[in-house]
């Protein structure tokens, strides 16, 4: 069975051809790799390929299909795309069209200032909220012109990462 795997923007068809102890044969987009793979501990792989030593630390991020991967040299993002992933991605994509309408907290923090009220007209680039996290204050600006429809936060309140704070129409 072959899987679509996306790493740093490149997507390839990857198939496990054979696995015999540490000796593993994998086909990536038609090219066959004969590598020696040792699992050091949970999520930590040592791969030898043409004598070259690669150390890969896989950190599951969110679900078993997405990983942050560290080698000694680089940080990668890897995603195994199966049918379920594709479904969610399509769904997410349609949501992203609305992205300009919402202000989402990228990190947890505390609301220092709310500079708008429901019904206010805002211009693109106008500061609407100030959030404080780890001694730093960040301004959140409108991404497009519009009217404030919802404000889900109050001054002094803590917000979670990915929480929708403001919606603009």
């Amino acid at each position: 069975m072959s899987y679509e795997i996306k790493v740093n923007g490149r997507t390839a068809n990857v198939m496990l051809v054979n696995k015999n102890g540490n000796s593993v044969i994998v086909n990536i987009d038609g090219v066959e790799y004969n590598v020696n793979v040792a699992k050091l501990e949970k999520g930590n792989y040592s791969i030898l390929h043409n004598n070259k030593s690669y150390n890969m630390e896989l950190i599951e991020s969110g679900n078993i299909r997405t990983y942050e991967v560290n080698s000694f040299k680089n940080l990668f993002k890897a995603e195994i795309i199966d049918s379920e992933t594709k479904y969610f991605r399509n769904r997410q994509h349609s949501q992203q069209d609305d992205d300009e309408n919402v202000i989402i907290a990228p990190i947890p923090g505390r609301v220092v200032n709310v500079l708008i009220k429901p019904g206010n007209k805002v211009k693109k680039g106008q500061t609407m909220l100030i959030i404080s996290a780890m001694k730093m204050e960040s301004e959140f600006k409108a991404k497009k012109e519009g009217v404030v429809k919802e404000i889900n936060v109050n001054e002094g309140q803590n917000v979670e990462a990915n929480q929708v704070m403001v919606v603009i129409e």
Partner: protein
Amino acid sequence: MIKKVLVANRGEIAVRIMRSCREINIRTVAVYSDADRKSMHVCYADEAVHIGASPSSESYLNIDNIIEAAKATDVDAIHPGYGFLSENALFSERCHKEGFIFIGPSPGAISKMGDKISAREMMIKAGVPIVPGTRKKITSDEEAIKIIEEIGFPVIIKASAGGGGKGMRLVKKKKDITSSIRSARSESKIAFGNDSVYIEKYIDSPHHIEFQILADNHGNVIHLFERECSVQRRHQKIIEETPSPILTPEKREEMGKHAIEAAKTVNYAGAGTIEFIVDEQLNYYFLEMNTRLQVEHPITERVVGVDLVKEQINIANGNELALKQEELQQFGHSIECRVYAEDPQNNFMPAPGRVVHITEPRGNDVRVDGYVYKGFEIPLFYDPLIAKVIVWGKDRPEAISRLKRALRESRIIGVKNSLPFLRRIVNTPDFINGTYNTHFIDKNHKFLMGKAPVDKTAEDMVMIAALLEYLEKIEQSSPKELKYIRNNWKDYTRVKNVMKI
């Protein structure tokens, strides 16, 4: 004799202070907020006391609660670390009043150096160079023109009540003076409700170079040479080194003497830092004094061979300094870099979160001062500093190559952090050549923020590892195992039934 110390701080500096205490058989007490129950300083200390809710104002800045904790644990002394209450004269005073030794300077020294205008005036009296200009309120355009012609262009107009770049105007030509003063005034009025401004010489391409000093209560003051702190982002240091790549031995000696003078002016006792702003011609000007231990103190410890926390405690015990100026030397070169939980790609936005994995660098001449561990949730309430990686080399090139090696060995997974950015910095020609000033990050923005080159084979190896991991996880959650569990579950119910009989 101090036998038990409360460390009124958190994170790496609290652990670092406790390490030195442990080495000299001093018992330690940690204080912690709600968010810090699982912090390493709580686990490292001999005792730990809860002092309030997560926001600093309700815990690490709450003097009453800290004093109460000190009483409850019957300590002899309180070490404030850096940040929080470390430069708070009221806290220093309160400690004295309650009968605790404050491991830091007197309230008087803190408040004199804390007020920038009074500090400036004292430096003038002591003969320490200050940035040319005036802190007097500018009352008329004519006065402003007169002052500026004395100082020479370029100058900077600053709001007296100011901060954060607001109410500031850079003036390079005479014709711009009047309009700049007006706009600075009006911006200042809006931002701070106060339109007074003052004028200072603008130092182009400045370096931040600071001198470490130690002063005892017997009038002895020494300096432990400089630290070059010009690699900054958002006016915060990220890499420091000593010796400075630009200082000459003569200039070093001269600045060291001025640093000692500055400390003597306020009858300083304890460890402190005199910050100078230095231009390309090595003209230097007093900027401010930090009346506490600095984040970057380890590089001084390494090249001078001194444990600064132990020196602080020695001074607090009322002892004379054992170190003599003429015996001190800078041995080799040391560099520190700060690893922050932040996203360099997104304007250094802080990035709290859970540390999923951490690999710290090892081997010769690498020191790590940190406090997070695998599984630790970095709180959002405090400074995003995760760890400091400090290296030493027999000379600057060796120190840089060792830092590169150490950064390559370092891994922190789970939170965005500045490791990739630091790796870029140490490969930047301006850094390698020592030809940098405080504009370094801006000047090298393109190099620092560029995309990493693609390594297709490495990507393919990532795909292989990801596939194997995924397949193993699929396998683990396969019906086979579930069936096994289900059977056990059946057995379990059967046993239960038997037991009921």
